[in-house]
């Protein structure tokens, strides 16, 4: 299964551990990701706050570059997923916008007819690879590992039909398939604060505190996520949460590809797990050893 890979800016920088795990895990499960040549930033939420047409235009450049390959574009980042899909929808629904985008792309020698589907990496793992296959491939069933599945917002909202916007469960099935225990986690699709962590830190820390508290309440060994910004907020800022609220959270936040990598018996260092700010706890390591 071959796809056009749109990595986004974060996995090359603050979320490079995500990319590390994707590099080793994807080939092992039969997912071939060919990086889109010379892609540009999707603009995320920030660009759209300043300029709308420009934001769509830079996004559309990527889609136009991907179109000749006639296959799905896959991205590991929820924000890129949202923005690229939004561009597709607006392109289809608003003729005025479509015309202007066409002219803009033309200036760069490109054109787009709206025929590229954009999917999240999780979607590919769940629906194209499938829980059964992952279960088969799991040489190390993570028995006893309690995992809180954290989806965040932008992968399930607005609705793309991939999973439920309030109570998604696709990643839950993956976790169960590789032998780990997916705990009851009602906060699974609640907001981490996203970019507010930079501009309104206290607000975002409060939101993260709830997410962490709930994972601990459910006795999870770790939280699994699929968005670079969510991972950063919950991982890198976890000590800040503790500082502000006098809590003692110490729960690692890893990417779902890293979890799958563990089930494939890949050493943690190769999966980029050494880059976690909140390191894997002794408890978690023990459970993994015994599994």
């Amino acid at each position: 299964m071959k796809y056009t890979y749109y990595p986004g800016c974060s996995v090359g920088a603050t979320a490079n551990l995500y990319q590390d795990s994707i590099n080793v895990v994807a080939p092992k499960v039969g997912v071939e990701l060919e990086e889109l040549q010379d892609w540009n930033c999707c603009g995320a939420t920030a660009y759209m706050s300043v300029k709308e047409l420009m934001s769509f235009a830079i996004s559309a450049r990527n889609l136009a570059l991907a179109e000749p390959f006639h296959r799905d574009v896959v991205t590991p980042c929820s924000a890129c997923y949202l923005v690229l899909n939004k561009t597709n929808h607006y392109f289809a629904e608003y003729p005025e916008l479509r015309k202007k985008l066409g002219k803009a792309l033309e200036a760069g020698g490109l054109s787009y007819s709206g025929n590229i589907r954009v999917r999240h990496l999780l979607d590919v793992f769940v629906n194209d690879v499938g829980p059964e296959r992952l279960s088969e491939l799991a040489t190390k069933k993570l028995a006893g590992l309690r995992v809180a599945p954290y989806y965040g917002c932008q992968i399930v909202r607005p609705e793309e039909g991939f999973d439920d916007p309030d109570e998604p469960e696709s990643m839950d099935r993956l976790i169960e398939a590789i032998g780990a225990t997916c705990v009851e986690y009602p906060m699974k699709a609640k907001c981490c604060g996203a970019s507010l962590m930079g501009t309104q830190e206290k607000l975002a820390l409060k939101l993260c505190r709830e997410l962490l508290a709930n994972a601990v309440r459910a006795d999870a060994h770790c939280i699994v996520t699929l968005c670079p910004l969510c991972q950063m907020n919950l991982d890198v800022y976890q000590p800040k949460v503790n500082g502000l609220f006098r809590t003692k959270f110490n729960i690692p936040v890893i990417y779902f590809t890293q979890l799958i990598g563990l089930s494939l018996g890949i050493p943690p260092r190769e999966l980029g797990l050494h880059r976690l700010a909140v390191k894997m706890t002794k408890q978690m390591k023990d459970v993994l050893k015994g599994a």
Partner: protein
Amino acid sequence: MSERIGVYVCHCGTNIAGKVNIDEVVRFAEGLAGVELVRDYKFMCSDPGQAMIQKDIEGDLIDRVVVASCSPLMHENTFRKVCERCGVNPYLFTMANIREQCSWVHVDMGDSTAKAKALIAAAVSRTKFLEPLPKREVSINPRTLVIGGGIAGIQAALDLAEAGKEVVLVEREPSIGGHMAKFDKTFPTLDCSACILTPRMVQVGQHPNIKLMTYAELDEVNGYVGNFTVRVRNKARYVDPELCNGCGMCWEKCPGTRVPRKGNVHEKLSLGPTTSIYMPFMQAVPAVPVIDSGTCLYFQKGKCRVCESVCERTAIKYDMEDTFEEFEVGNIIIATGFRTFDPRVIKRYGYGALPNVMTSLDFEIMNCAAGSTSGAILMADGSEPKSIGIVHCVGSRDKHYNEHCSRVCCMYALKYAHLIKEKTNAEVFDFYIDMRCFGKGYEEFYDRLLGEDVRFVRGKVAEVSNVPVNVVEEGKLVISVEDTLVGVVRRVPVDMVVLCTGLESSVGLAEVATMCNVSVGKDGFIIEKHPKLGPVSTATDGVFIAGACQSPKDIPDTVAQASAASSAVLSMITRGMIEIESATAEINEKKCSGCRICNNLCPYLAITFDREKGVSVINEALCKGCGTCVAACPSNAIKAKHFANEQIFAEIEGLLSV
């Protein structure tokens, strides 16, 4: 043809005259071939206006009529009757719509007048080629079919029966009573629902003119107004109603159960026995139990048979099978009621996932004095709640589910608030967007509730969750909502949540509608003939509707509609005959090649194939003259009476001649 056409141009006050130059139009019409005289008047539909036409016909000045005025939907009948009264065949009359299609849609008088001329030229041209058509009448069978035994069906059936007419009432549940039989009290008077309903149920059960078919479903309907043939499937009860005396020994001893054995109070909510052989509630009519074969130990495992052994009347018959019954009726009243929205799909409200989140119907059943909790309001674990949140607009007024407002929820929410205050010491929170209290005594009821210490919060509930953020919220259901009147976001912890689920059309209504040849709208309810002036009729003659199958409504409106429907039916029955449209299609046998293309195209299923003759045949009574077959026939063998090719071509030429 030596036809002499009279053209009458109506001013319609200033509706037409304000935008069409009447004088110019009159002079133009005078110059048209075939026109004997042209008159104009302020209101042609009035008595003097009609008298004008009458005088000209009786004076033998004209023998065909064109009236240029409003839409045929308004006054075609009026003018046709004038013609008839004077001995002119009503089908020698044409109406030119120079109002809705002309004066009302133009800004420029010049354009409007030009179009009026074209329309009149078309009408005159067509009228030259019109042919007289015979009046068609069919008889009306005085027996009526009522589908659905809720309060709408019951009221309609009783009205007809009391008028001395036969009624067949078909109900698919084991007993009549519908939703009303599941309520405790009704708003705004707080009458006991069963107390006001059961006398009527008994009346229906005992009435000599009503044939009651319960646990029965409509299977097929054929025919046309006044002459329907209906087939009903009687589902197997496995209990012989002729022998059973309703003693109740069978369900008393039955070891089977229809509810989870280890279920909590909410999972075991029921009005009647929860055993496999059961009566839905104690006042059931008929008072005959039914066996739920899905949970019955005999049907599932071949064991038990206790009910058979304790029945003194040997009424238990495991080998009963579904049977079919056919009969004829003249009219049909659809009264299939509603179902409540299933809130499981709204995940953020937690129904089905969190304990102590109930729907309105669950809550009604719990409140019923004859129910499994004897009317006590209890939590799932049997304890008394200390606080209850009532949530409005669940599945209503929401583009994701149903756009419509379900009309009754605000009122029943107030009713619940009152019942809770009456029966418990619990705090009551009521979360609403608007408070819709439109009926007689409704606003007064709201006023009463405002005085009863209910905490009203104007805000649509965003979420019901069991995740606490502080100690007080532990073990509670937390409602997140914006208090829009105050302008703050609140988290309200409660013990129990009642979701005011909206009303949707009954399960299977689409199938019943298809069988009876009526249409269902986008909202799932049956489309009435006219939303203002024809709420209980449909586009299909002889099929009427009453109650919630037309749109969500409360009991007073339902009863009113039921009586309206039965009144409409009685009007038909009293007339004994009904005139149906003569403008039907006719197949020329000689030209028909037997290709049968038309057979499946007819939306009214009016065309059949005569195998002996090898030609298709149109049932005139079913034909509505839509013209689909006429257009489709490759042999040009079908003629649309009153819309024949030459008539239409003449009309087109008339339009283009201006």
